[in-house]
């Protein structure tokens, strides 16, 4: 072979080799937006810390497919208007390989058409029914619920066992609460409960005294509240000041925020008696969760975020675990391949094994309804005690019976 033919061939081979090395060294980019400010900011920051912990863990083990994981997260300010732009940037400018949805229904809903149109895998992050109308086949939510019934059944069922005949609904006028409220109203109708008060309130509501008075005047047996963190605090305060009346057997259900440690600490004894949804509470055993929460607590103290992290952090770490399991098993970053794997296999996570239904939601939901009991003021550590959250539903995790009526449970 003549030299002038050998040299270009050798150069081409070398270039190919080096480009291959370069590609192998390029990180696997995972991108998302996360509410780090605004009403979901407190939860979002804690969730982000858990995801960062997973990235550190997976990189310590050598990364994914032998490549380091690079995590890109932008603050969407809990503003749904910002998320489509952020995800377009993640895809077209940052060129991420995989996407995780922002925490919450409201910021997630606007990006669903984008991921459907581009046929992308999207790991959902505690949103509620955002895929119901979009029907995207590469959507997998980390939240322990599926349809509205999976969320409300425990609460309404508990009310029925107490002999409730009527119900009041108080719901924020936005995507999450309305999705939940519509399902809960249907369920209440099926259960033969009479709706005596039905109020949607705008997110700009400053004070809830007027609504709590109206609920008291309507004399319902159950009050189902679907609120966002700021509203939840204001509602609990108004209930504490004005009272909802002696007729009410059960109060709560879908109040976001009462799972966040700073809010629980601030509200203290005002929480007693409220029955509310949770993703996890102390006492529920999953392999690895206690160890994760211990590690998280140290990091949370440094990062000044939710010190206990029961609600979102384990489930966000689970997103990372699911990605890791799927990529390792399939040795691929192809979205279709990964989606097929997640759909067909049981995912092993620190929040228990997860199997997905055809809609990308949990096939076996595990929404916990627990009643706050014996909570005192100004004490964070008390919330590590399982006795503060008496689990009423589901039966597999049940730790006690509900105390009713609500005023009695509050110790008033």
């Amino acid at each position, binding site marked *: 072979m003549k030299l002038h033919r050998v040299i270009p061939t050798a150069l081409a081979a070398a270039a190919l080799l080096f480009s291959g090395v370069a590609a192998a060294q390029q990180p696997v980019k995972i991108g998302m937006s996360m509410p780090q400010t605004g009403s979901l900011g407190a939860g979002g920051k804690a969730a982000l810390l858990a995801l960062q912990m997973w990235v550190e863990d997976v990189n310590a083990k050598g990364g994914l497919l032998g490549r380091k994981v690079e995590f890109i997260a932008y603050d969407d300010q809990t503003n749904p208007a910002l998320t489509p732009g952020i995800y377009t940037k993640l895809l077209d400018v940052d060129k991420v390989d995989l996407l995780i949805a922002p925490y919450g229904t409201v910021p997630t809903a606007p990006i669903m058409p984008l991921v459907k149109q581009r046929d992308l895998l999207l790991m959902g992050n505690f949103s509620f029914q955002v895929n119901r109308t979009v029907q995207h086949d590469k959507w997998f939510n980390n939240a322990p619920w599926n349809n509205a019934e999976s969320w409300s059944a425990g609460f309404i069922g508990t009310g029925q066992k107490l002999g409730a005949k009527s119900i009041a609904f108080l719901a924020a006028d936005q995507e999450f609460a309305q999705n939940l409220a519509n399902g809960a109203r249907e369920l209440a109708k099926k259960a033969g409960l009479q709706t005596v008060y039905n109020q949607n309130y705008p997110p700009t509501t400053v004070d809830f005294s007027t609504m709590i008075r109206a609920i008291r*005047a309507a004399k319902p047996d159950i009050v189902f509240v679907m609120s966002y963190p700021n509203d939840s605090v204001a509602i609990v305060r108004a209930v504490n*000041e004005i009272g909802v009346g002696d007729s009410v057997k059960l109060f709560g259900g879908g109040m976001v925020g009462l799972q966040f440690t700073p809010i629980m600490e601030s509200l203290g004894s005002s929480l007693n008696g409220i029955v509310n949804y949770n993703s996890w509470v102390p006492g529920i055993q999953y392999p690895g969760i206690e160890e994760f929460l211990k590690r998280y607590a140290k990091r949370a103290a440094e990062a000044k975020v939710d010190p206990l992290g029961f609600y979102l952090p384990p489930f966000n770490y689970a997103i990372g675990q699911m990605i890791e399991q799927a990529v390792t098993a399939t040795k691929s970053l192809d979205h279709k391949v990964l989606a097929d794997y997640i759909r067909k296999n049981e995912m092993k996570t620190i929040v228990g094994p997860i199997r997905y239904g055809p809609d990308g939601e949990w096939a076996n939901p595990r929404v916990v309804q627990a009643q706050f009991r014996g909570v005192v003021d100004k004490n964070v550590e008390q919330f590590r005690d399982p006795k503060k959250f008496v689990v009423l539903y589901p039966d597999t995790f049940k730790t006690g019976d509900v105390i009713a009526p609500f005023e009695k449970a509050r110790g008033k």
Partner: protein
Amino acid sequence: MFSFELLLEAILFGVLLGCFYAAVSIGLSVSFGLLDVPHVAHPAIMVFGAYCTYLLGTYGFDPIVAGIVLMPVFFLLGVGVYRFYYESFEKRGTEAGVRGLAFFFGIAFIIEVGLILVFGVDQRMVQAPYIGTSLSLFGYRIPYRLVVAFGVALVLTAALTVYFSKTFLGRAIKAVAQDEPALRLMGANPVRIKQWAFGIATGVSALAGAMLIIVGPVEPALDRLYIGRTFCVVVLAGLGSMTGTLAAGLILGIAESIVLTLFGASWAPAVAFGLLLIVLGIRPQGLFGR
């Protein structure tokens, strides 16, 4: 379901809510209403005041006392901010004044980001004997925190009304709002008077911030919720009228409360701007403007 008792309660709570709206708007009534400064950072300064109240609360200060203690500090802050605004923007004419709008947006943004960096994004609340408890009156249970806001709004309105009508500096502030060149011809320095007035507006915002955290929990971005409402109250009142601000707050609070009770909460946000449109259509100078 409508009942006369429910309507009475709606009016009662509307009065309390309206006084709270007046308390958080009265500082803006001075800075925007009297001085014509596009002070869009007013709610952010209030939120800053609320966080300072929270901070003093950790040292055992009662929120109202904390608000009063903060007033002179915020007064000085206001004097400094106005001086900077005047030298950088107002002195350079009307066009520069429009750029001043961006300046105040910038201040609001810096305050918001600064609060996030220092306190994080979690909600903050304060504890006091009058928070979370209620007063029983004729069978009604009225939250004490709203009674406190009611009292503070009345005291602030009365104090500022007396100050602007009975004191030399107060009358000078009103004069500078009406005819600045004339005041200059009288030998007074309008810039120093405006500086003083802006200091008062900012000092009042400290107490309003204390009200904010007494009435509900605060978070760094809370100012966005109040920009529309506070400007609405001030414009509805007629720019610069203190008693008008109280009256406009009351009208807004009562209207919101009645609409919420009788027609549903979703209509409540429309009340403020609906009222504003109607009033400006009939009386462009506002309800109490001249």
